[in-house]
């Protein structure tokens, strides 16, 4: 399965999570969440509120090369500032937020700051809004475009953002948080991967799980309409 088809599985699963959501926010470099929210609004949940740092409720006809491109602002229903979006989350009124994690641990905590490999510091870009959003949004959804044992670790060296993730998306599988176990468990394994592969590439204990459902034709149609050039695959490279 090529990267475009793989990303479609992830987008579809993200979109279906939003069926009962009040609101969803996505930030920078968030091509998969961008497309997932667009699908959810068109197919499953027209009342879903879409927050973007460039405005309230975008209505894009295609996905730009940046998920926070000001061009999107032209097609919003109202102005809204990033600061106000943070306030909404701080007030406990933000439902789903999509957060990228440079490193993700078994609790679903994120490290977007830096790690030390021996003496050497490896610097990440920083967690952007994650520290607040992970802690205060109702349903944080974490995602990553790569899956290896340095990314999915038992415990992050530094906590940039802590919260209770609703789901964690990797290019191999989907995790959910088992609160009784206090750690992530595998909920779905993407059809191009396997329990064995995930076990090998994950820094904490994992389980077998049923395959991720296929994206529907309608979902794929919207994805291809909004992303005809396949920008989305950049995430998985």
């Amino acid at each position, binding site marked *: 399965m090529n990267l475009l088809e793989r990303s479609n599985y992830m987008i579809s699963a993200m979109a279906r999570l939003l069926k009962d959501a009040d609101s969803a926010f996505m930030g920078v470099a968030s091509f998969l969440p961008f497309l997932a929210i667009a699908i959810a609004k068109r197919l499953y949940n027209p009342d879903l509120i879409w927050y973007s740092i460039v405005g309230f409720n975008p209505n894009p006809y295609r996905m730009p090369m940046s998920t926070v491109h000001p061009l999107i602002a032209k097609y919003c229903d109202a102005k809204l500032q990033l*600061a106000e979006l943070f306030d909404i989350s701080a007030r406990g009124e933000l439902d789903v937020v999509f957060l990228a994690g440079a490193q993700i641990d078994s609790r679903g905590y994120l490290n977007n700051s830096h790690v030390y490999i021996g003496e050497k510091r490896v610097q990440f870009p920083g967690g952007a809004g994650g520290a607040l959003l992970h802690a205060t949004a109702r349903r944080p959804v974490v995602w990553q475009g790569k899956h290896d044992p340095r990314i999915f670790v038992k415990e992050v060296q530094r906590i940039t953002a802590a919260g209770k993730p609703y789901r964690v998306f990797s290019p191999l599988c989907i995790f959910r948080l088992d609160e009784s176990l206090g750690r992530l468990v595998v909920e779905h394994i993407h059809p191009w991967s396997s329990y064995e592969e995930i076990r090998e590439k994950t820094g904490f204990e994992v389980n077998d799980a049923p395959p991720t459902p296929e994206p529907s034709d309608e979902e794929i149609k919207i994805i291809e309409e909004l992303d005809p050039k396949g920008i989305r695959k950049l995430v998985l490279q």
Partner: protein
Amino acid sequence: MTVMSLEEAAEMVENGSLISLSGNLLFRIPAAFVRELARQGKRDLRVMKTAGGYDVDLLCGLGCAKEVIAGFVSFEVFGLARNFRKAVEEGKVKYSENTCYSVIAALRAAAYGIPFIPIANISKSYFVKERGFKFVDNPYGEEKVLTVPAIKPDYAILHVQKADEEGNALIYGPWFEDVLMARAAENIILTTEMIVPTEELRREIDAVWIPKLKVKAVVEVKKGAYPGACPPYYDMDFDMMERYASLDEEGLKNHIWEVRP
């Protein structure tokens, strides 16, 4: 006179100043101004922004910055900010990591003239301790409340679409943190795609949220955000950004003289 050249405006910024930069990532960034700061060989700048890109990276890569106060520094689709990253990894630049939210809170406190402001409890994040954010007792309730101290930039450097000669200015599209920065900073330097008569600006009053207060310089710089975007006038230069993202220090030194202003 408030209208001046890019060179003159950049000369106002002393080594060691705390500057906050407009826009977000690669959008409406004061790119031409930042290149001029680098051409003038500024040192020890403290650079503040919620989410930096080209601007922060360039100041780090050319040794102009000693500290970055931000929540995120990256090029989004163009990959990581290599020069920022290298400077931080080598200890040449201190990354005073925040979350974008706490950068905003610090600017709000400065804008309101109050020494600190309460924020939501994000105390599990490691940088809360590193930044020295402190809890206070809530005098109206039981719980402890996390706070952030005010940070007042010496200069807010804003690239806008239109300004008049006095420094009243208009922003089309998202403000990002720019209006807040303008309120919080001690001084403002504007670069603008075009200088227009005050009367013309007034016809679009609903978008004119930067009054001339504290504006010390107005510089007309066409394509002042290049290679970033400044809608509705131009988009990012994708080729240039891809090239930029792979520049080493030598390449960076050439870049600021090749790309003028």
